[in-house]
């Protein structure tokens, strides 16, 4: 499941923030926890037996602000620091976490995590970690070095720009957020890896009011970069896009129902692939026989126009990192090549079961969570057609300019994805705006029905939710056409 990067609920927890630097946490050498302590904790975690122990340490600082109803309501700062300890014994994982990063606190968590090792007989285990390679934040301008007033200025600018877009714009909410997440992973087989992840986001929600009631428009920017994002991105433009989206829907007619040809605009969300096959290719679903893609490697699962890649290394994208949350380097993994399924996505645990390496897709929301198989930036490689030509050659159908979120049942392959800006296509031309609706399809069927892919590739950010954990992801695609998919509007 995925949704836009900032939840719109009035009591969202996601807009926390800080901006002044606190004293650096952790050990004298600048690491979150010193090597010798980690080695002793890992040894203790295996004292009752077990195959592997892991310490995941995280220090996360967040800062954010929301402007709503013309007012900066509240700046918010958050700080979360702690460690999660895994002990793996056969098929069983024991897990405990603590906010206490002292050696005593970590040893207590190790003791709790090792409770699953019932057999005993582990004895004294000596763990020797690899040499430390400190991580460097890949941000030119750390958001913590930027004044709060500068961040707030972005919000008021966006408010002005959105309200200038049309008299019918009746409400504007703009949100800014940044986070810095330092992580360290140490395992009993000697792995020691660190990362320093800086993320910055900005979003605008507009409401337009007309004779037919209210409509909403949303636009966001979210990158794994620092405050330099705003050298590249014009927040006025983000605000105008959100406002236009709401305004255009005031005149919208109900979306059609039934199966129709659909053209998805480049960068409209890419959520199609995230839901139609991304989740179904996650190895935790595969090993449990809970995916329509089980046993399909080497098979044609999509149109030959489909080459799908998951890549955690693409510069600055929202789903980026240097190492995943199990300490493995982010990778570029081709999942579908010319329509043929080439591989699944793997975390360390599922990969180890079948004797292969992790693909760098083990992620977790925070130190309080177990890692599982997750996507990073998932995208369809661009094709060769002209996007305008694709529309021109579609006699009738629906043109989706922007998608919202989606959801999939990996076992059946049925998935939905919602439109937030869509139009009718009549006689090869984009015509009237449509009200929001979900589209529903079956992953393998829809992937086979893609008959045109254009050159205008673009990425969009999103938040992916799975089993109660949220992580940032990217999605990407160029303009493409699906010959038939069911749209859930109210018009007959």
């Amino acid at each position, binding site marked *: 499941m995925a949704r836009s990067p900032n939840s719109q609920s009035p009591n969202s927890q996601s807009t926390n923030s800080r901006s002044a630097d606190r004293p650096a946490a952790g050990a004298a050498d600048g690491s979150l926890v010193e090597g010798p302590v980690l080695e002793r904790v890992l040894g203790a975690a295996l004292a009752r037996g077990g195959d592997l122990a892991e310490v995941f340490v995280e220090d996360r600082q967040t800062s954010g602000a929301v402007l709503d109803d013309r007012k900066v309501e509240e*700046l918010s700062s958050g700080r979360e620091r702690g460690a999660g300890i895994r002990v793996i014994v056969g098929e*069983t994982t*024991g897990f405990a976490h603590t*906010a206490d990063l002292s050696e005593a606190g970590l040893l207590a968590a190790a003791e709790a995590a090792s409770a699953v090792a019932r057999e005993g007989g582990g004895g004294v285990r000596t763990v020797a970690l690899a040499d430390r390679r400190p991580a460097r934040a890949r941000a030119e301008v750390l958001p913590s070095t930027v004044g709060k007033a500068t961040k707030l200025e972005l919000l008021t600018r966006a408010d002005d720009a959105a309200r200038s877009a049309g008299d019918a714009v009746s409400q504007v909410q703009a949100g800014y957020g940044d986070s810095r997440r330092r992580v360290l992973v140490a395992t009993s087989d000697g792995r020691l890896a660190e990362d320093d992840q800086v993320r910055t986001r900005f979003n605008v929600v507009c409401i337009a009011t007309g004779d037919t009631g209210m409509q909403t428009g949303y636009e966001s920017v979210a990158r794994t970069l620092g405050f330099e994002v705003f050298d590249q991105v014009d927040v006025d433009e983000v605000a105008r896009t959100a406002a236009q989206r709401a305004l255009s829907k005031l005149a919208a007619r109900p979306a059609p129902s*039934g199966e129709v040809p659909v053209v998805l605009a480049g960068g409209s969300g890419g959520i199609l692939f995230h839901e139609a096959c991304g989740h179904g290719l996650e190895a935790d679903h595969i090993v449990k026989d809970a995916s329509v893609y089980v046993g399909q490697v080497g098979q044609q699962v999509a149109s030959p126009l489909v080459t799908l890649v998951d890549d955690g290394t693409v510069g600055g994208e929202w789903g980026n990192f240097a190492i995943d949350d199990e300490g493995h380097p982010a990778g570029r993994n081709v999942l579908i090549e010319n329509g043929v399924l080439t591989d699944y996505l793997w975390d360390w645990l599922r990969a180890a079961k079948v004797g292969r390496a992790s693909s760098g897709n083990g992620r977790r929301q925070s130190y309080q969570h177990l890692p599982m198989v997750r996507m990073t930036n998932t995208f369809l490689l661009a094709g060769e057609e002209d996007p305008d030509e694709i529309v021109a050659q579609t006699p009738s159908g629906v043109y989706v300019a922007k998608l919202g979120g989606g959801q999939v049942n990996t076992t059946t392959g049925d998935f*939905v994805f919602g439109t937030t800006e869509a139009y009718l296509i009549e006689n090869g031309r984009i015509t009237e705006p449509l009200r929001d*609706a*979900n589209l529903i399809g079956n992953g393998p069927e829809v992937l086979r029905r893609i008959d045109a892919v254009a050159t205008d590739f673009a990425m969009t950010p999103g938040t992916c939710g799975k089993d109660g954990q949220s992580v940032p992801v990217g999605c990407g695609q160029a303009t493409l056409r699906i010959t038939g998919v*069911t749209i859930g509007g109210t018009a007959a």
Partner: protein
Amino acid sequence: MAELLDLASSLVDRAVAGEQMEVYVARGHDTEIRAYDGEVESLSSATSGGVGIRVVLAGEGDDEGNRAGFAWAGSLDSEVVAATLAEARDNAVYATPDPDVVLATPDGVPAKELDLWDPGFAAVSTADKVEMALALERQVRGADPRVRQVDSADYGDGSVEVALASTAGIRATTRRTSAFLSVSAIAGEGADSQTGSGFTVGRSAGDLDPDVAAAQAVERAVRMLGAGKARSGRCAVVFDPRVVSTLLSVISSALSGEAVVKGRSFFAGRVGEQVATPAVTLVDDPTDPRAYGAATYDGEGLACRRNVLVEAGVLQGFLFDTVSARRAGTTSTGSAVRGGFSGTPGAGCRALVLAPGTLDQETILAEVGEGLYVQSVTGVHSGVNAVSGDFSVGAEGLMIRHGVLAEPVREVTVASTLQRMLQSILHVGGDLEWLPGIAAGQTLAVDDMQLSGA
């Protein structure tokens, strides 16, 4: 508990002149066990805690207005808490001055003491919890030869203690325990696979009924075998109680006074109007201990109370926290909700209940005659817009033919608008279920929705 309140109070005592302060402190313990294929796949246990601090700076002139700042930390360590307070103070400097930004003051409404803490909670051994998860998995695997896989069988429980104190005189403590079992089954026949989930919730392990969870998961998966796409058309839709709970949760955001004062609710300005059929009486009542979201105090430390939102189809009012109430020129309804220590308060529902009717599900299906029974929905966050009211969700379920459930249907959508659905309710079931989340649910029949399929 006393120690948490002491911590909150001692921080509040540090407030200086011209400054109001509210401190929310929470501490909890959670256990989660996942069974798979006869083994424990994972066992997690942890204690966690944190603090959220709001500082409100008083305006200097008469119409200067107040400014609020917030900071939180996932730790109760004294140095971290002190740094959090400093950060909240600094954040307040930057807010837009607003005379309506104030902390809640005690309003004299007595708090209803609720029994939400099961003292037997801590006595359940980890071994017993593990066995409950393993037994649930075995039970589902053995229940029907068509059950091909049990994706996950989980036991979870948690306890949480919260203390809230403020310079405005708020002193509140609450504590609660909860436990659940949940299971996800995959039924298969030939190449066809279908899924179904089941769960049971309570205040501790002893309240749980694994038979209910297992039966739900198996029935829901097995009865979907052979499902195909239905033909598009308009029809009556009967929603399962779980789906109704989800629908009420969505509608609840339009009943928040905050949404009303900010021009984000389609109910704004309609108090006293008939917004639903007379069969609809909708109440938010966190003082009913049967509700999953039952609570003694709201997120600002005021007593929770029973608020009637819709009576016989007529809109009665909205739910307010302190700030949104002032903006609307009224007083708080004790309806502040907050997402733990890292969230700030906002107005919202905790325990929505649609007053039950008299008919059971079988009778409702018989009354409806022809239509679609929806067992589960997808894409609620992407296809339901609580501002415009547009409603479009993925659905699976069974056709209703001649008043009984018939062939299974998948990969369809049902669509309407929330406004129209409320005006098209045919029957509200008497089969009320106290489901997890912010709303209970029962069978609900809605006329004239658009089914989209083949």
